[in-house]
């Protein structure tokens, strides 16, 4: 029953491009992209509670790989290369930082995107001599939408599968108490690394799929730090520990931010900040947990 419902929902979403305007399709792509990013982020950061602020590092790496390779390789190979690059970098970053206490991890990821951006800028200016690159791919907005929808669905599917697997159980234990996890026989480094690399690969692919929309790519565009922050706040608003939480947080917040950045371009960061603070204070475990608590309280009152 539930599977049928999800399949039907997916089919409706897949047909949606035929029913909306170009502007509407743009919004759909944006919303689905953030659903994918937030869900992909939560795959690792949700259960482990390692708050990663490196989303845009991987997203940008995906976009940049496409920008570099789009004329050299056929499109499917470009996507595979992007995923491979993202996974490889995640492996290196994970191996070096996941042994560290959570706080160091946050700080490291906080600067990772900026580091990657500076390195690419420096490399492009001094070695290749080109700062901006163009992406000419024969892809329509609909193609991009369908690809992103497929990636988003795959991400949520993968999360559902992980939640039921040994890996999911191990990740939750890591999030609760790493010492207990280790003494229960869980290999901390491997558990965290697998989830981190999976999550980063999804984020990289999302950047690769979205990049043809930019047409013109340069480091400042591809590594816009706001993307990392939005991803975190969306996942937290919905509930990073729930399967559908990140998606639930992403859609309304994306629309709100679209509206804000169109109507209040100058005061936009202020709203972002207020929202962050509001979520932390009012809904620390996300909307879904908040609703549950409310319902439980309602039940107690009636009983």
């Amino acid at each position: 029953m539930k599977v049928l419902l999800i399949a039907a929902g997916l089919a409706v979403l897949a047909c949606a491009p035929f029913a909306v305007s170009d502007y509407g399709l743009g919004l759909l792509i944006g919303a689905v992209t953030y659903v994918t990013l937030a869900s992909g982020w939560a795959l690792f950061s949700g259960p482990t509670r390692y708050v990663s602020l490196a989303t845009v590092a991987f997203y940008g790496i995906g976009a940049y790989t496409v920008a570099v390779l789009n004329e050299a390789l056929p499109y499917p190979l470009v996507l595979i290369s992007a995923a491979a690059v993202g996974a490889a970098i995640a492996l290196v970053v994970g191996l070096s930082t996941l042994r560290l206490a959570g706080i160091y991890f946050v700080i490291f990821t906080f600067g990772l995107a900026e580091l990657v951006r500076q390195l690419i800028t420096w490399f492009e200016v001094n070695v290749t001599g080109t700062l901006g690159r163009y992406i000419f791919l024969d892809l329509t907005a609909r193609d991009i939408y369908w690809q992103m929808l497929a990636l988003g669905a795959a991400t949520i599917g993968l999360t559902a599968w992980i939640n039921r697997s040994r890996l999911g159980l191990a990740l939750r234990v890591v999030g609760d108490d790493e010492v207990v996890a280790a003494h229960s026989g869980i290999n901390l480094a491997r558990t965290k690394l697998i989830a981190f690399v999976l999550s980063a690969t999804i984020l990289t692919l999302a950047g690769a799929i979205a990049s043809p929309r930019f047409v013109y790519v340069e480091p400042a565009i591809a590594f816009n730090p706001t993307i990392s922050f939005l991803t975190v706040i969306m996942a937290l608003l919905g509930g990073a520990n729930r399967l559908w939480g990140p998606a639930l947080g992403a859609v309304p917040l994306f629309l709100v931010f679209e509206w804000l950045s169109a109507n209040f371009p100058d005061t936009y960061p202020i709203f972002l900040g207020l929202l962050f603070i509001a979520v932390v204070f009012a809904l620390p475990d996300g909307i879904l947990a908040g609703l549950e608590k409310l319902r439980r309280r309602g039940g107690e009152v009636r009983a």
Partner: protein
Amino acid sequence: MTLLAIDGATKKFDGLTAVNEVSFGLEAGEIVGLLGPNGSGKTTLINLVSGELAVTAGSISLNGQRLTGRRRDQIARAGIARTFQLVRILPSLTLIENVTIPAVFGPGRRTVAEAQEVALEALKQVGLSEMATASAADLTYIDQKRLELARALASEPKVLLLDEWLAGLNPTELAEGIALIRSLKESGITILMVEHIMEAVRALCPRVVVMNSGRLIADEATETALRDPHVIAAYLGEGADA
């Protein structure tokens, strides 16, 4: 035969030697008390055996298999389970989930379905099976301690390390706790327990090892040890000649 062999285990922190060339062994099926005044290095020794800390020198082996130099999870999978001096439960998980984890990831490497049966059995053993689906965060202190023991048991360990598991219980709970550990003895498990409550040590441990200032000062039958002037002096302070 010797199941757990500790051979010259030493741990130094900067200038301080917390555990100093400690050697003793545990026979299979034995319950041994680890005694000593506060700061004598008991918990450090437990941490060395369970891999929480690495030895500076010496070796620890289980069934002839070297444990030193291995990671905590590898040592857990080799068959060493432990509880913590300050109780550590997994608050966001249910009781049954808490206990299922070591059965899945521990020496048994069981499937989740099998592990749940093992976990339920362990919860029954400690008397918590009725609350299996409750959240671990809602437990009382004694029940948290029980849960921690169940978690250690569910890994189906060869050796169980209890770090003051009986501390902080009221007299009724203490009697229950002692009965519970005694019931474990029948299942043939080997236990090394750090304990300050002499009543419990007398009731449970035929043999004790005693530490003072990082060194092993006695390894003998419990009744002998508790009359041993060295042991008494250690508890009363260096100056006191009892």
